[in-house]
């Protein structure tokens, strides 16, 4: 059985209206009936007392002259009043002188009442009225009436009330069935709209607004809410689609990058092994050219003319240059193929060892070399040594004429926030090694070519070398996860900056 709480609003409204109208009507009926019954009772008492007074005044003479027969005849007239059950007349001395009983039954008459008045005894009304004649009380009339009239009236009223209640309930039902739509209609439409929205996820639906009351406001707010949801939903869908597209293209690009990466790595490996193999294999015929060239010179130097000796001389020089080129190529490829594991390296000590190797050239050029404090980092010690060797010998080599080289080596720590400091030892972050000279310098537009193998900015006639040194430095820096760059201008000296991580990840042995 459904409780009132779970009934639909339509039924609730109908029930409330019905209950209210029924209660009001019931109360009104009850009040009306009660008032009427009380009024009727009062009238009944009045009627009965009038009857008693008439009877009394008619029987006064009979009482005075002690004539029971005449008094009895007067009482017999009460037959006309069907509700009078019995009646009797007392004389002055309280003796019953006449009696009347409806239908002729037997009644035990009470003693003469001393005071006039009435009282309701069970379902009877008993009334006593004095008989007064000529200002003297000569006797008493006592009457008892049944209350059939009241009972009949009450049952008639109950019947009428029930009829009225039923009829008005019907009217109320019909009226409320129509009137409750004013409230339940918009709510039901709202509920339908809401369920359509939630079932189909269709936020373009709008509830119809039919009034300007609170329900209308509710519908309006609901629609505004729907609109907001729709707008947000559309925006969300759009960005989701964009996100999906972005993701797809990102995946594609990642795959592409990975593929290119793999290809690059493979071609790189192939290139390196090719370089290595080629260098080795090229050395053998070169050695034979050099060796047989030497023998030819030793044996037939006197037999050959000047021109032939010159040819021989140039052939030998070319073979020597080729030997150097092959050695450099090998050295370049060894940066990756013959790599050593990373260990803790004191860069200051490496710099000092390199300087001691270069002592002869420093003396010859009259150079001034200043080495500042350098950090200890995790690195390949041989390659570090190779890098300092290249950088310092470059600084000595590209000196301006008539200007002895002034070289400064300095180290700095690049902190996480981008600031530089000289606080060693550095546990994390990057270190920057700067090698500065006062040499010929170069134009920065050639910076790209500077670190590529066998690229030279100056003619070999002026400065010896194959142009592999800075390329090796670049490769070493890259292998350590760092990089190398330079700042310069022609005739202004150069400043080479090598950035290296203080710690290598997972490769410390």
């Amino acid at each position: 059985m459904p409780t009132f709480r779970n009934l639909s609003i339509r039924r609730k409204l109908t029930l409330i209206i019905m209950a209210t109208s029924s209660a009001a009507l019931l109360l009104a009926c009850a009040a009306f009936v009660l008032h009427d019954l009380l009024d009727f009772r009062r009238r009944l008492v009045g009627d009965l007392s009038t009857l008693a007074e008439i009877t009394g005044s008619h029987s006064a003479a009979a009482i005075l002259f002690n004539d029971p027969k005449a008094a009895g005849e007067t009482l017999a007239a009460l037959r006309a009043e069907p509700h009078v059950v019995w009646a009797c007349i007392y004389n002055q001395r309280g003796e019953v002188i006449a009696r009347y009983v409806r239908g002729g039954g037997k009644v035990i008459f009470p003693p003469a009442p001393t005071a006039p008045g009435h009282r309701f005894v069970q379902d009877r009304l008993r009334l006593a009225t004095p008989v007064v004649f000529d200002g003297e009380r000569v006797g008493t009339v006592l009457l008892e009436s049944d209350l059939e009239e009241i009972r009949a009236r009450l049952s008639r009223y109950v019947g009428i009330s029930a009829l009225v209640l039923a009829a008005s309930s019907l009217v109320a039902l019909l009226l409320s069935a129509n009137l409750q739509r004013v409230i339940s209609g918009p709510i039901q439409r709202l509920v339908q709209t809401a369920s359509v929205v939630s079932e189909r996820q269709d936020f373009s639906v709008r509830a119809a607004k039919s009034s300007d009351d609170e329900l209308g406001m509710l519908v309006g707010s609901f629609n505004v809410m729907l609109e907001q949801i729709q707008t947000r939903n559309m925006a969300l869908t759009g960005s989701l689609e964009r996100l999906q597209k972005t993701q797809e293209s990102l995946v594609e690009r990642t795959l592409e990058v990975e593929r290119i990466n793999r290809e690059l790595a493979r071609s790189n490996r192939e290139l390196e092994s090719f370089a290595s193999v080629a260098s080795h294999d090229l050395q053998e015929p070169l050695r034979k050219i050099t060796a047989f060239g030497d023998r030819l010179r030793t044996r037939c130097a006197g037999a050959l003319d000047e021109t032939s000796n010159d040819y021989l001389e140039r052939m030998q020089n070319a073979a020597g240059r080729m030997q150097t080129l092959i050695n450099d190529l090998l050295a370049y490829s060894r940066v990756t193929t013959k790599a050593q594991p990373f260990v803790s390296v004191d860069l200051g000590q490496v710099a000092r060892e390199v300087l001691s190797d270069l002592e002869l050239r420093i003396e010859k050029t009259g150079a001034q070399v200043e080495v500042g404090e350098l950090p200890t980092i995790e690195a390949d010690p041989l390659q570090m040594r190779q890098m300092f060797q290249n950088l310092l010998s470059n600084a000595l080599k590209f000196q301006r004429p008539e200007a002895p080289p002034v070289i400064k080596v300095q180290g700095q720590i690049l902190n996480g926030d981008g600031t530089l400091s000289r606080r060693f030892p550095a546990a994390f972050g990057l270190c920057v090694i700067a090698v500065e000279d006062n040499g010929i310098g170069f134009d920065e537009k050639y910076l790209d070519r500077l670190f590529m193998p066998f690229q030279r900015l100056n003619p070999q006639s002026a400065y010896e070398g194959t142009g592999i040194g800075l390329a090796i430095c670049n490769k070493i820096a890259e292998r350590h996860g760092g990089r190398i760059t330079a700042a310069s201008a022609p005739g202004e000296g150069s400043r080479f900056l090598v950035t290296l991580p203080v710690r290598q990840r997972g490769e410390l042995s």
Partner: protein
Amino acid sequence: MAVLGRRLASAGLFLLLALGVRMETAAEPLVSGEPAVKAAFLYNFAKFVEWPAGAFAGPREPVAFCVVGESAIGDELAQAVGGKTIQGRPVTVERAAPLDALLRCQILFVASAERTRFDQILAVVGRRPVLTVGDDENFRQAGGIINFVLRRNRVRFQIDRAAAERAGLRISSRLLELAEVVDPAGGPAGRR
């Protein structure tokens, strides 16, 4: 003290019993209390009679009862009327009234003892507005208005309407209803 209380109680009981007996006997038709009943009737008659305008000297003048002849009824009447009023007037009773005093009366009762003088007494009254009441068949025949009779041990009365009209008295229909009406021919004719 206890003895006295008991005596008082028994005396009270006796009194109650005596009263009970008296009430019992009062309910029965009483010939022995006949004078008292007749006196009461006599008194009550006055309430149902309307006298002509000149019968009383003024509005506050008493209703005068005169009793002629020796009778217990006169004594009972004198006792009964003490302090009572009829139609707003005081009541006086004159027993053994002389004939010349009868003209002052509104109600005249003639005892049976005066049987021989009925005509004489009624002649004194003549057509004056006096309600004449007797206790003898001859009194009625002599021209009296009301006459007591005994029926089955009950006191009843006869009324001669013609005589009343002659005297200028109007007798209430309610009294007439209770009376034995005398027809003009003479004898009693039962109740209407």
